[in-house]
């Protein structure tokens, strides 16, 4: 893995003539977890996809990429809410998909290590259909770890999981992605409060930067400071909602 770069997105984006965001300026510090929290449809995922180089139908004008000036291509891994496992490949096959797509052979020792790390060593030959939701997401994490990229973009990867699997996956992911530049898009204030070294709230009124309590992530969910932060995040989300403005 190369050194983890900082990321920045400054500019505006539109989709089919409709402005998605304007005068946006997002800085993602190097080697840390940044949580981008916001309501659905605000453009969080678009931002993430822009960084991944998957703009799709979005027109973006501005700067978007690594702060060190070199292209992000080949330094990014992506993990989404949908595990995107290929149903005809087993766990090991899915985890090593990236290597095959680049025409290389995956390192078997590394595969063993990663599968053990995510707790799927015994399920390496299972197909996705034979796995639970939590196991599938761990397989997706294994695939992400096999990529060994300095920048990891997470698009609500835990939102489809039940509370128990989600807490476990958050800890496992935070643990295994240490030292990388991580941008996590989420709509869950509790998740952002637990996982972010830095938390950015994206609402209709723009970006709000919050400094979470010091200390390592993931923070304990029951910690008073974490809970206070969670309430504060929720308050920002509610305050900035268009309906609240109309009512208030």
């Amino acid at each position, binding site marked *: 893995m190369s050194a983890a770069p900082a990321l920045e997105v400054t500019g505006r984006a539109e989709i089919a003539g409709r402005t998605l965001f304007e005068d946006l300026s997002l800085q993602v510090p190097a080697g840390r977890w940044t949580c981008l929290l916001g309501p659905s449809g605000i453009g969080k995922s678009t931002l993430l996809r822009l960084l991944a180089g998957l703009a799709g139908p979005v027109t973006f004008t501005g700067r978007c990429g690594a702060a060190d000036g070199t292209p992000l291509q080949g330094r990014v891994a992506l993990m989404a809410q949908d595990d*995107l496992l290929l149903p005809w490949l087993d766990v090991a096959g899915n985890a090593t998909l990236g290597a095959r797509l*680049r025409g290389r052979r995956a390192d078997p020792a590394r595969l063993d290590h990663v599968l053990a790390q995510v707790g799927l060593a015994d399920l390496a030959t299972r197909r996705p259909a034979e796995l639970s939701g939590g196991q599938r997401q761990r397989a997706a994490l294994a695939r992400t770890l096999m990529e060994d990229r300095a920048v990891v973009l997470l698009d609500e990867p835990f939102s489809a999981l039940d509370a128990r699997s989600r807490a476990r996956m958050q800890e496992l992911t935070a643990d295994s992605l240490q030292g990388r530049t991580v941008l996590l898009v989420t709509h869950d204030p509790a998740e952002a409060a637990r996982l972010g070294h830095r938390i950015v709230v994206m609402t209709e009124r723009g970006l709000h930067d919050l400094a979470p309590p010091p200390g390592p992530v993931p923070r304990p969910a029951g910690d008073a400071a974490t809970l206070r932060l969670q309430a504060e995040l929720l308050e920002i989300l509610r305050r900035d909602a268009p309906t609240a403005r109309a009512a208030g």
Partner: protein
Amino acid sequence: MSGLRALAASALLGLALWQGLVWVTGLPRFILPGPARVAETLWQSRALLAEHALVTMAEVLIGLGLGTVLGALSAIGLAASARARRLVGPLLVFSQAVPVFALAPLLTLWFGYGLGSKVAMALIIIFFPVTASFLDALMRPHRDWQGLARVMGGSPARILWHIRIPAALPGLATGLRLAAVYAPIGAVIGEWVGASRGLGYLMLLANGRAKTDLMFAALIVLAVFTVLLHAAVNRATRPLLARD
């Protein structure tokens, strides 16, 4: 087991209807022979029927094999290149506007009276369904998978090989199932136009000699073969369909 029983019941119903038609219309046996008469002919002429059936089966199986390979390769080629799709796509559709029956005399002229023209006929008749249904599946977007693959640094060719083709195999299976039914039609049309062997040839021969019972027998052999072929292809392609 209940499936087999239903099949037997359905066959019995068909035979009963047939026999009923013979009784009600009172047609002479050289116009409409009854099931018993045809069964007798089936048994008596079994060697003759088998000999001709083997020829037709060979034509069908070779045509099916070649048509599948060519159809699948064309679909992959078209899926890989937008230019090829623009260039060849309309041609492919136009080729479907030409009635295959009208091609049979030409194919006989080009490939002779033997196996070649029938194989070509079967191949042509199945080429389009195989190509079209596989290509259709190959062109389904799977945006998320392809996006992930691009982030991973996959080239278009490798994305095609590792993601688009495996994801499209159910479409190929659908095409093959259609092809299994169409291929015998192609072979028999070929035999009608010009042949000295095969079930289609035997049917024409029997018809010309007012041996309607033999014609029916040949028809039944052909139908049973087609049903068995379809069932075999169904079973063989089941793993492709049970992938997701």
